[in-house]
């Protein structure tokens, strides 16, 4: 399919626009893709690195936190136990002061729960079981001992003031003498102040058998006893701290307190890292004395065994380090689960605080961190992806918009571009239809306008040419018409009325060629017995030849008629020549054969002015030959030249055949002439005695046979005269 210019332009403009847009888009898309991939891989690398960094950071952070927590909590526990041991120290010092200086104190009688109702904050006394052995009773004690007890009862104020600081908690503050009596303040907030004692407590309680007594009796500083089994109703663990006191004789007993320290407890139970984290405290024997774990390994439920001997090697190792008072962090396995244990010693107590975080929690936290990081990266990637798609989408939108705008714009542009061309072709079509007055009005200022201008110029030229052509054609037609008229005139000038006489017979024919030529023949009577005959051929063709022929014929006729008898035929021809020469710059000339026949005698006087020699038929001999002619010059070019006249006498039956070169020079298709030789040969062959019409027809037929298909190139004139002689 062939496209017109508009369509091509449209496609060209569209293609150019779209191609450049696509190229730019492609480039930016490519660039975006590179950036996106780079960013993506960068993000992924960064994410992976960041995630692993985060993971290790979180792990190390958790470890550090664990260690810090262990340290801080152990410090806190130490601080709390210090407070307790300070109380115990105060109690020991006060008790020692009283025991060493009994005279400084007045005896005080304490409440005896056997008889008295005892409330909290009220000191009371319990006697040792041996006091009741062997019929003994407290009332039967020696006076010294009674006095000692009553003096020592002065500790009550100290106990009271210390007990006040523990108001609201289950706690006891007491003094156990080596002599077996036991002075105490007990706080049981839940009993609303009133204390209840069973018999075992009243009569079977020997303080010297209690662990707090035994462990402290030989100590020099406060000792925390293993009162770990003492859970109160609130579930608080009870801490026992005790130390000896002295009298003048040395160690006289042990002072101590049992307190439920909620701060310590919460320091332990509320210290946990991670969802499954927990904390515990072991003592210097490797036993778990506090734990926020209710059961399983490291709970206080399994405190009978030394943790250092645990079947779980990691726990045993850790316990050894803890008991040895070291700081550290170790992976351990608790109940088959991996934990991370951080521990720190609690100074002054021989305890060690340990806090654990489930390894999986750490891993999970690290994983959380990692996945958070990766999520951020993913978010970044997806944002990037979104932006990328947005960019592609917008590009596509722009592309569609571009198409939407570009197509009509291109169409318009192409239409505008092609419009003058269409106008041009319309205009040219109109011009083609013959409207040469059409002017192309195209003002585009470009090549098309130039083309239009050229078309206009061409139209003008065409118009002029057409006008000229019309004029020339008209002129030619006019000339042709005139030539035809001239031909008719010329033909009309040739005499057609051949005389029907007994003494002479004559016939002439002139077959003109296409163009008007210069042949002519003539005959006229000079007088009653003299007949003049002429055959002539004017050089060239056309109007000039025709005109010259007319002149030549007229002059020759005039001179012949007027001066023949006086001057003779040669003079007639010479005079005619002179006349023709005048003003003959064109050098026209005419060949003339002119003869005058004396019809009575048969004498024939003739002058040949450059003309073809006629054929003469001798009737007696029945033979033809060329008439002997002098070679006089043609008429017209040269004046004053002489002409020679000749004469011959015809016998009756003789015939003269005159012709122009149209006969002898008639051409066939091979450009071969008929030639005089063929003429004379034919004349000798044919019967020259036949009727002149027949004779001329025969000659013409022979010429025609020679010429064949070739076009007649010259006038063919034949003129025959037969002398018959005087009719007698």
């Amino acid at each position, binding site marked *: 399919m062939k496209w017109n210019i508009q369509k091509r332009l449209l496609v060209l403009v569209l293609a150019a626009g779209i191609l450049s847009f696509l190229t730019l888009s492609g480039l930016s898309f490519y660039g975006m893709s590179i950036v996106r991939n780079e960013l993506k891989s960068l993000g992924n690398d960064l994410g992976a690195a960041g995630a692993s960094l985060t993971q290790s950071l979180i792990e190390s952070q958790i470890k550090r936190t664990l260690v810090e927590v262990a340290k801080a909590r152990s410090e806190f526990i130490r601080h709390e136990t210090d407070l307790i041991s300070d109380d115990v120290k105060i109690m020991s010092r006060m008790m020692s002061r009283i025991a060493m200086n009994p005279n400084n104190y007045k005896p005080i009688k304490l409440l005896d729960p056997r008889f008295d109702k005892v409330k909290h904050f009220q000191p009371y006394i319990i006697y040792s079981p041996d006091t009741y052995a062997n019929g003994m009773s407290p009332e039967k004690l020696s006076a010294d001992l009674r006095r000692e007890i009553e003096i020592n009862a002065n500790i009550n104020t100290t106990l009271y003031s210390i007990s006040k600081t523990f108001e609201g908690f289950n706690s006891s503050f007491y003094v156990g003498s080596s002599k077996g009596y036991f002075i105490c303040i007990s706080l049981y907030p839940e009993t609303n102040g009133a204390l209840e004692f069973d018999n075992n407590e009243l009569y079977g309680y020997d303080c010297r058998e209690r662990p707090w007594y035994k462990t402290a009796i030989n100590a020099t500083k406060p000792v925390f006893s293993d009162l770990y089994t003492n859970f109160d109703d609130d579930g608080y663990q009870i801490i026992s701290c005790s130390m000896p006191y002295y009298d003048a004789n040395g160690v006289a007993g042990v002072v101590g307190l049992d307190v439920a320290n909620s701060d310590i407890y919460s320091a332990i139970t509320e210290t946990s890292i991670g969802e499954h984290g927990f904390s515990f405290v072991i003592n210097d024997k490797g036993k778990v004395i506090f734990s926020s774990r209710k059961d399983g390994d490291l709970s206080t439920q399994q405190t009978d065994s030394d943790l250092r001997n645990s079947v779980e090697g990691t726990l045993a190792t850790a316990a050894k380090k803890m008991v040895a008072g070291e700081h550290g962090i170790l992976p351990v396995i608790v109940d088959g689960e991996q934990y991370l244990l951080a521990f720190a010693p609690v100074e002054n107590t021989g305890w060690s605080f340990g806090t654990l975080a489930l390894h999986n929690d750490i891993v999970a936290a690290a994983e959380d961190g990692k996945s958070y990081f990766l999520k951020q990266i993913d978010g970044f990637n997806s944002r990037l992806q979104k932006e990328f798609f947005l960019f592609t989408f917008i590009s596509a939108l722009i592309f569609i918009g571009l198409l939407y705008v570009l197509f009509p714009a291109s169409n318009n542009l192409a239409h505008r571009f092609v419009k003058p061309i269409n106008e041009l072709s319309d205009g040219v079509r109109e011009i083609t239809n013959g409207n040469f007055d059409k002017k192309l009005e195209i003002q585009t200022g470009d090549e098309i306008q130039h083309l239009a201008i050229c078309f206009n110029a061409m139209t003008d030229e065409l118009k002029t040419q057409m006008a000229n052509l019309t004029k020339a054609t008209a002129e030619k037609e006019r000339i042709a018409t005139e030539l035809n008229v001239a031909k008719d005139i010329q033909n009309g000038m040739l005499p057609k009325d051949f005389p029907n006489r007994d003494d002479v017979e004559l016939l002439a024919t002139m077959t003109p060629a296409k163009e008007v030529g210069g042949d002519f023949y003539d005959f006229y009577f000079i007088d009653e017995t003299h007949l003049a005959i002429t055959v002539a051929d004017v050089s060239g063709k056309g109007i000039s030849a025709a005109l010259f022929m007319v002149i030549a014929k007229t002059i020759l006729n005039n001179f012949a008629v007027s001066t023949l008898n006086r001057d003779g035929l040669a003079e007639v021809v010479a005079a005619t020549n002179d006349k023709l020469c005048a003003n003959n710059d064109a050098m026209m000339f005419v060949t003339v054969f002119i003869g005058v026949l004396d019809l009575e005698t048969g004498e024939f006087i003739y002058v040949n002015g450059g*003309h073809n020699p006629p054929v003469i038929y001798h009737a007696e001999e029945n033979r033809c030959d060329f008439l002997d002619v002098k070679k006089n010059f043609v008429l017209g070019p040269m004046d004053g030249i002489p002409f020679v006249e000749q004469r011959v006498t015809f016998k009756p039956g003789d015939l003269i055949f005159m012709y122009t070169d149209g006969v002898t020079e008639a051409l066939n298709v091979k450009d071969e002439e008929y030639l005089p030789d063929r003429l004379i040969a034919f004349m000798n062959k044919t019967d020259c005695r036949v009727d002149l019409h027949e004779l001329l027809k025969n000659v013409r037929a022979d010429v025609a046979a020679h010429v064949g298909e070739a076009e007649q190139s010259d006038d063919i004139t034949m003129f025959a005269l037969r002398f018959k002689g005087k009719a007698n």
Partner: protein
Amino acid sequence: MEIKKEQNGSALTIHVIGRLDAGSAPDLSKELTTALDGVTDLTFDFAELKYIASAGLRVLLVAQKRMNKQGSMKLIHVSEAVMEVLDMTGFASLMTIE
């Protein structure tokens, strides 16, 4: 008809080839009007001239008339057929034929 010219200074030789008839005579005539300027020695070489018609003779006459004024003119290598015409028309006695 074909015309070939050989100019040698003021001498000009014109070869007329083919038929010098009423149709072609004007061509030669036209050629001569300019070609004869300054020529003092004009030669027509008729070696290849097959035929001469009366119109051709007229051209020769015009040339002869002009050369009578400015120099000389001659015809060479005239064929028998042409010579016959020249003879018949009396041109032979008027012109220099070699």
